[in-house]
């Protein structure tokens, strides 16, 4: 076991992990952040997407011990002061989720994207959405929701 400090949504968590513990398991089991879901644990589905120092990363492909000193943002950190993030609102308004299992991953991916590329067109948004898997929605409403949130931000 190694003791390490993870910074998650601005909070410091001092946890004990084995070298082989993934970031996803550490977040879920040691930090109480179960919002990050696991769909494949081999880097394809993107359900586990979180932001590491502002960049999207697959939490199932990182070991927790790699994250010392980095800042991690998860879906629990999207809403600020009790106010939902515009993406969260857009996902609800545009019916961009059904079972909601893929949703945290898409939200984190899109949160990074609309900040980085506020001018993105539909084609680029679709390209982005193709990074992750959703088995319920057929993606169309996810694209629409991200579009709407990006527009609101502009």
């Amino acid at each position, binding site marked *: 076991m190694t003791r390490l400090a993870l910074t998650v949504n601005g909070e410091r968590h001092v946890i004990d992990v084995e070298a082989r513990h993934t970031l996803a398991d550490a977040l879920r089991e040691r930090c109480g952040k179960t919002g990050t*879901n696991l769909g494949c644990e081999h880097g394809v589905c993107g359900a586990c997407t979180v932001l590491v120092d502002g960049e999207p990363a697959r939490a199932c492909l990182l070991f927790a011990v790699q994250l010392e000193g980095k800042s991690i943002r998860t879906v629990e950190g999207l809403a600020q002061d009790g106010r939902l993030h515009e993406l969260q609102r857009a996902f609800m308004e545009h019916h961009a*989720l059904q079972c909601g299992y893929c*949703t945290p991953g898409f939200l984190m991916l899109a949160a990074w994207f609309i900040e980085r590329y506020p001018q993105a067109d539909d084609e680029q948004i679709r390209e982005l959405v193709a990074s992750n898997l959703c088995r319920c929605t057929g993606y*169309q409403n996810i694209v629409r929701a991200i579009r709407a949130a990006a527009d609101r931000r502009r």
Partner: protein
Amino acid sequence: MKVVGQSVQRLEDEPLVTGRGRFVGNLSFPGELHMRVVRSSHAHADLIAVDAAQALALPGVAAVWTFADVSEVPPIEFRPTRVQGLEPYRQTVLANQCVRYVGEPLAAVFAESSYVAEDAAELVAVDASPLPARLDARASDIEPTVLRKEYGDVGEAFRKADQVITLELSIGRHSGVPLECRGAIARQDPETQVLELYGATKRPHPNRDVIARMLRLDPARVQLFEGHIGGGFGVRGELYPEDFLVCLAALRLGRPVKWLEDRRENLLACNQSREQFHRISAAIDSAGRILGLQDEFFHDQGAYVRTHGARVADLTAGMLPSVYRVPAFRAVAHYRLTNKTPAATYRAPGRFEATFVIERVMDAIAQRLKIDRAEVRRRNLIAKSELPFTRPFQVLDTDLVLDSGDYAGLLEKAQHAFGWDALERELAGRRTSGECVGMGLALFLEKSGLGPTDLAKIGLLENGDVEVVTGAASLGQGVETVIAQICADALGVDYKRIVVVHGRTDRIHKGFGSHASRTTVMTGNAACKAAQTLRARILEWAEGQFDLPQEVLDIRNGELVRTDVDARPLATLRELAGRAKFEAEGEFFSDHMTYPYGAHLAVVAVDRDTGGVRVLRYLVAYDIGRAVNPMLVEGQILGGVAQGIGGALYEEFLYDETGQPLSVTFADYLIPTAKEVPQVEVLITEDAPSPLNPLGLKGAGEAGINAVGAAIASAIDDALGQKIFVTRLPVTPVQIKRALI
């Protein structure tokens, strides 16, 4: 304003967008153990010995079980059915003496952490002696049953035929593959001794009864809890070996036991579906009208009969004549076992397959007689005036009566919305200039609202909200919202003030769950009745309390009002709740399913260099009778189309010649991404409300996927300019490349 028919926002969403989902993997109980299943690595082998000594020696391992530890548990039951011959082929919860597919559970390890459980599972030594694997249902010598459906004089139809068309068609093995893998936690409440199972869904009540029966427990001491579920699609919420293992372990080891499968296990061990081989012949007259159909098919059930018994084969045979007249019909279904993962239902079970087959026949008739594809269909459609239309056989042990519809009308609307005629000319032009593009068309019949009954209990809560307790399950489809909308109108309150309870056996004594597109129809009508009764009770009570005739009393926007004096409020529901207890029940019965229908239209482009197929446009037209929430209906359809595209072009569970599965990661089992799924157009019509329920409802869950294989096949043929090129799904680039060379 009525809220039924409005695309209101879902009640389910907020916890799911904020990371507060209660998926089973997010739950934990103090002192829990973690289960890991040791699975067969052989497709077929005699088990000589399973040695757990080394695993047991690992620190943190509490127990390791093999068949000997669970031998008193009977093989897993399937649903009651009239089909004979299935019993000997049920699966035991751990393999006994022989393993019959790669992934079959043969031992279970219980340990302090999931990591340790996995380490220990690796240490279980399995000695097995391989046997030859049966991999082709057509050649398999194990045939538990043969199903037959027949009416009319088929022999005579073929003698009279102007022409006979015969096709050999097959559908590849694929399945629901929800994004959340299966999972379960069992625990025994130390005080009440009640066994609780979390992660349950789909059919909580029937599943509770089966678990109690198989583990010899009092059903009143077994309770199932749903939480959130990351997609169902037919496969999640059926009972699997692992469900019994966690329950038994919680009872025996006296600690909560948690099991979460990983994706590889999910692709090896969760129900697979669809694999069938058809040989179909159509006797037609000179105008392309079908005089008789005869289909013989082989259904690949995999290694064991699972909870659905022979339902998929039964539905395939029963739904095959679809929306067409077909005066004489015979289907013979060979239900066969192979050494592959057991099969069961996947969204639109039997229909994805049957629609592909019958619509290929329609295209073949069109090509043979050089008639337009839509015209051939029109000539064979059951006319509006012929409805209700009875097929003289049963599906799912209910009479097949097509309740209402205007099939030709829908076809016309769909073609119009798609711009079919103009598109036909445009694509012909593009083909002349060298592009490989084409369009396709498929009609389909759905079924929904499977009975026998559903119950709903409704009551006013202290805070003035209304609670509706149902026997339904929520797999992401929006059941809370839809039921709330229905009750809101019936009662006169805002739908946001209605709390819908589902998936809990401790809150209502019976329920048949959510599957077969039944919930909106069955639970919806039950909840509506309950809400109407509640409303009547409130008004009756108010009559005495306020000394006013009922005719001038109403409930509007959550308030009791008198209507004769300018809708003056008399009391809020909260005030009423403080003065008396208001409760009601409603039950809805149905012995017939209701049959929605629709059309899929597609444009595809084939890449000559890669053999890849791109879907350029897609339209689904669907008559739902009455849409409670059009946005959610559309959502169901969009998701279904994406899955259908998977089954038509990408997804397949492949096995090598020894029965080793080749599709065990998301890099091999290809779920379509946003790049493969086009923008989909949806046309929802309400021309044919169901006469079978007061709200006129039909189901929405399976319309999006039903005809995708059929429509894409039709479009690929058109693009390639080849007659019935597509005879097998999924259509792979390799197949197409071969044809283009």
